[in-house]
């Protein structure tokens, strides 16, 4: 890397011992920072206002399109029904994501050990990945001891692949000279894995985690639609269907709001974990310094 590209601050001479390292931060004016928050908030609020106005002005009946206030009211009054359903969906999502993380990382590590293992497992990976998960759901329902397990497996399969493929890619993308360096110092293979390959693949892993986290929730909901669970211990998808059958549109919207918020929370959480891991060193988590 040339001096110039290594040093985007434009201070291209060797700084030597006594020079402080100048990290220039972009000076964003306070007003611009305010606007960055205000603009999306105002836009969202406007959207909700238009929704409300459209419902009121056209006197749309509640069983066709409830107003935002109806939805929020339903969220509060039906909390006793929605909250247990949400916990079920959340439990499936996070268990699936956790299993996918453990399984995806472990399998990726096994895959990169040998080209032959990779070639042998490749067709299975492709078959599982390209087959639409929803088409497999009926089969899983037959084999699984209960619906919850089937949902968990569906959600796991979907979240598993982005993590596996990203992690595999990451483990393979290690700087060759660093690999040479480790070889030169007689590093054992567990040392190379632990001190070089795994840290080097963290940016890839984090990308897989963010995708997998979002997909796990989607899969948990879609699988429940397919599996058609009912009664006690059923998730938000069942409450959505139930509300639809009963034309209880406010509750349906309330359930949608809950799902939306859950999705946002998962995205924020995985992004935060990613930032926490990478912000000290990786380009993706750094502000451009010019």
């Amino acid at each position, binding site marked *: 890397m040339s*001096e*110039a590209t*290594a040093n985007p601050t434009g201070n*291209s001479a060797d700084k030597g*011992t006594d020079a402080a*390292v100048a990290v220039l931060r972009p000076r964003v004016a306070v007003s611009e920072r305010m606007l960055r928050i205000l603009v999306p908030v105002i836009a969202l609020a406007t959207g909700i206002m238009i929704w409300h106005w459209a419902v009121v002005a056209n006197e749309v009946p509640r069983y066709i399109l409830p107003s935002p206030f109806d939805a929020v009211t339903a969220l509060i009054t039906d909390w006793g029904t929605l909250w247990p359903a949400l916990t079920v969906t959340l439990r499936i999502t996070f268990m699936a994501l956790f299993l996918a993380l453990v399984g995806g990382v472990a399998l990726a590590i096994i895959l990169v050990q040998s080209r032959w293992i990779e070639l042998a497992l490749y067709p299975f990976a492709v078959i599982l990945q390209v087959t639409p998960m929803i088409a497999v759901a009926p089969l899983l329902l037959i084999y699984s001891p209960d619906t919850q397990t089937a949902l968990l497996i569906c959600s796991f399969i979907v979240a598993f692949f982005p993590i596996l493929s990203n992690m595999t890619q990451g483990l393979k993308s290690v700087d060759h000279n660093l690999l*040479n360096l480790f070889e030169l110092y*007689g590093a054992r293979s567990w040392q190379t894995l632990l001190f070089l390959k795994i840290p080097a693949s963290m940016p890839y892993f984090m990308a897989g985690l963010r995708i997998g986290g979002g997909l796990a929730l989607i899969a948990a909901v879609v699988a429940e639609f397919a599996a058609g669970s009912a009664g006690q211990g059923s998730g938000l998808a069942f409450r959505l269907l139930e509300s639809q059958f009963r034309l209880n549109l406010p509750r349906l919207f309330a359930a949608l709001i809950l799902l939306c918020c859950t999705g946002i929370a998962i995205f924020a959480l995985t992004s935060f974990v990613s930032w926490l891991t990478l912000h000290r060193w*990786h380009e993706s988590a750094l502000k451009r310094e010019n």
Partner: protein
Amino acid sequence: MKRTVAKLSVVPAYSAPSAAEYRRPVVAMQNVTKVFSNGTLALKDMSLEVKSGEFLSLLGPSGCGKSTALRIIAGLGGPSSGSIDWPSSKINSKGLPEGDVGFVFQEPTLMPWSTVFGNVYLPLKLRGVSKSAARDKVMEVLASVGLADFADAYPRELSGGMKMRVSIARAIVTRPKLLLMDEPFAALDEITRQKLNDDVLKLWEQSGLTVIFVTHSVFEASYLSNRIVVMRARPGQVFTDLAIEQPDIRDGAYRTSEAYRAICQTVSDALQGAIQAAAS
């Protein structure tokens, strides 16, 4: 943290070799031939003995196998035939004198997720030295390359020249007998490069290291070395082996002196000879 003003100070644990150790062979390539898997003959029948305390430059046009020779010495990819002998080192199971060799790549090759300290600590970590036991050693070599204040910085915060210093610090933290440098300053600007040349020279003078320095720059080789091995391409072989008489003090004034110009002329002529030999 203590501020060090001196760019390079004497590393105390390093001492210049005794008269008996001096001129003893450190490593010897015996009739080394290297054929790559695509059939390219990179090196043919190359023999080279490097003596203790030498600053040897491998100079040659690109494709002459100088980097390949260096990598073979480091144990990165064995020779197709021939051998590498280490007359005065303990050899591990892979035939390498573990810890006796430091390597500086053309790129700084630092782990971006690790601090300057962590990067320099790495060779010791891989040998099972605990962080607390290694701390003094690591800080000492960091001070010797003028980076004691940057132990907690991440590589991205450093300039190209500073990254290269970290790379050098990492290479000497195990106190190797032999330092291998593969065009380490080729990607740096001229000012930084001259500065690092002086720093490496000082390190070599004070430590008694043996250095093999791969370069394609006549000026760099002429400035640094007391021995220059000019290589030719197709096939990669030693073309000439020049002993260089250097003055006691090499500094900015030396760079413009007649003596230096004469060395450059000799080396340049030898390089031209090597290029013509490969072309004919």
